């Protein structure tokens, strides 16, 4: 049974988490994600769940580490500066193979930056969310519906692959309201967690959750094994959307809110006879490299539309193996690309043909 309701993106994340079996939310206030915490504070006590406002983002992510160690579904949310603080914990969660869901409703940076939408934590989310070799599953919603659906997916993927999963949203999708359809029970799969620390009951040896490995040959082996798991994730979990790519001569790559603006620009460009399409990564890691590589044989150029100074563009270049030029179309600091702004870039790239 499902119902259709009008919700803010941040609220959709919170409600979807609850319906996915999450009963522990640990957070710290920061704009523009505070609605997640506020929603959880209201709902959790009514359903026997735990809402806890931590003294810092550091503490919140370590409470997540504790709940995850007990084998329970749990979530924390924050926005860019707060995620920087959580990075220590993300490294530990990845190192201990602990399923957990982390939400980043991005705002402009660096430093304290602003409170308007941004996508400038792309590198942080997909490449450098803490020290050491590790990955997180990173999901990029582009609508309030996807805020809900991908949150649910994040819990399942985190449990399935025993690793942290991040929702990389932005202030626009977090704050805007759209109709959203929510299933009664989004908790698709139950996973056994024999590794969890819930007490030995004197019936088994003690479980240990730990990332201190002093013997280099063992630490190397564990890293290699974790990357074997990542290979499985890369082969099984890539998700993306193709939009008007059949006859496209220009391929836009964009995710989240930028992809919606790009779609409007594509419609307008097509009216003017320019064949442009979109590849929208839904999983930022694992990155949909294959469709972009395939597109590189057909299109004359790529445009990376993003709300950062050029971060996604590196992955587009890598995936397309630099076979075709990749142009950047971006606004930053909380400014958002308008459809006209993207259209102008499309027309400019169309004029250039395949030239760089």
């Amino acid at each position, binding site marked *: 049974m499902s119902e259709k309701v009008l919700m803010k993106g941040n609220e959709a994340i919170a409600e979807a988490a609850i319906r996915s079996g999450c009963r522990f939310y640990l957070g710290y206030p920061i704009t523009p994600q505070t609605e997640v915490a506020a929603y959880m504070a209201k709902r959790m006590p009514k359903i026997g769940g735990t809402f806890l406002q931590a003294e810092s983002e550091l503490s919140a992510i*370590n409470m997540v580490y504790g709940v995850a160690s007990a084998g329970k579904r749990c979530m924390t949310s924050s926005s860019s500066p707060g995620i920087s603080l959580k990075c220590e914990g993300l490294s530990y969660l990845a190192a201990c193979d602990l399923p957990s869901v982390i939400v980043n409703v991005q705002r402009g940076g660096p430093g304290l930056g602003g409170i308007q939408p941004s996508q400038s934590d792309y590198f942080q989310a997909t490449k450098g969310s803490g020290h050491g070799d590790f990955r997180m599953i990173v999901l990029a919603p582009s609508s309030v519906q996807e805020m809900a659906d991908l949150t649910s997916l994040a819990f399942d993927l985190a449990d399935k692959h025993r690793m942290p999963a991040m929702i990389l949203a932005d202030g626009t999708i977090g704050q805007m309201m759209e109709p959203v359809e929510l299933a009664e029970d989004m908790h698709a799969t139950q996973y056994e967690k024999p590794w969890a620390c819930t007490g030995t009951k004197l019936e088994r040896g*003690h479980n240990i959750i730990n990332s201190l490995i002093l013997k280099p040959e063992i630490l190397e082996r564990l890293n290699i094994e974790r990357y074997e798991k990542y290979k499985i994730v890369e082969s099984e979990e890539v998700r993306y959307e193709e939009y008007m790519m059949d006859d496209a001569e220009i391929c836009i790559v964009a995710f989240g809110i930028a992809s919606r603006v790009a779609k409007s620009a594509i419609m307008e460009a097509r009216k003017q006879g320019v064949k442009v399409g979109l590849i929208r990564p839904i999983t930022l890691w694992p990155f949909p490299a294959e469709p972009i590589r395939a597109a590189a044989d057909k299109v004359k150029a790529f445009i990376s539309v993003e709300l950062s100074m050029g971060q996604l563009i590196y992955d587009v270049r890598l995936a397309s193996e630099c076979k075709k030029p990749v142009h950047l179309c971006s606004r930053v600091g909380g400014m958002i690309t308008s459809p006209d702004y993207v259209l102008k870039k499309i027309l400019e790239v169309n004029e250039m043909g395949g030239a760089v």
Partner: protein
Amino acid sequence: MVVFEKPHGLTDVPLHYCPGCTHGIIHRLVAEAMDELGIEGRTVGVASVGCSVMSYDYFNCDMVQAAHGRAPAVATGLKRALPDNIVFTYQGDGDLAAIGTAETVHSAARGENITIIFVNNAIYGMTGGQMAPTSLPGQVTQTSPYGRDVKTAGYPVRVCELLSSLDGPAYLERVSVDSPKAVKNAKRAILKAFRNQVEGKGFSLVEVLSTCPTNWGMTPVEALEWCRENMVPYYPLGVYKDKYADEEAAK
């Protein structure tokens, strides 16, 4: 009749601690508390960063290793997720009173129903003897080679006194393990800190004055004397808070 044996709460792994280090004694007291209360099977311990990091190998209960200073936050998550389990942290002074100050203060302020064993030996042992938040004024360490100068390095943190101003904690006591008599007293305090949690009384912390012969540059016996003569006067032993003392006395 068995007069003395290894507590079940300890594994059969040889401890890595230096000769004369009192971590071994304190580990044993924690294990004895688990044995006597019959809680090992439902206890989850949180190891911290410092000399005691590898305590996850030594305690027979389930163990989670926490990032430096974050053990009380990790314990909070565990206890909220497993309210019927017993959750304790085992932390040193650098971990608890420097990098983890916020986690310590706020888990205490929330009155989390957890047990904290705080081992204060006035130095960073694992990294080779640097000045700790609890190093005494004038104490020579690797990073206070001319003695801790309070004008530039500030004053030591008295954790029990600091936390005693909060309404959250149920029980705060400072003990020592510098003599058999002191060890017996420490045993009583640690047992009480665990029993409090079993009875749902809330946040209990026992600070144990400990020694570090290696990094203090002393023999084990000299170190015990130094603890008695220098640490105990600066860190007075005793109960700093006991919310349920009257109730217990009435029983």
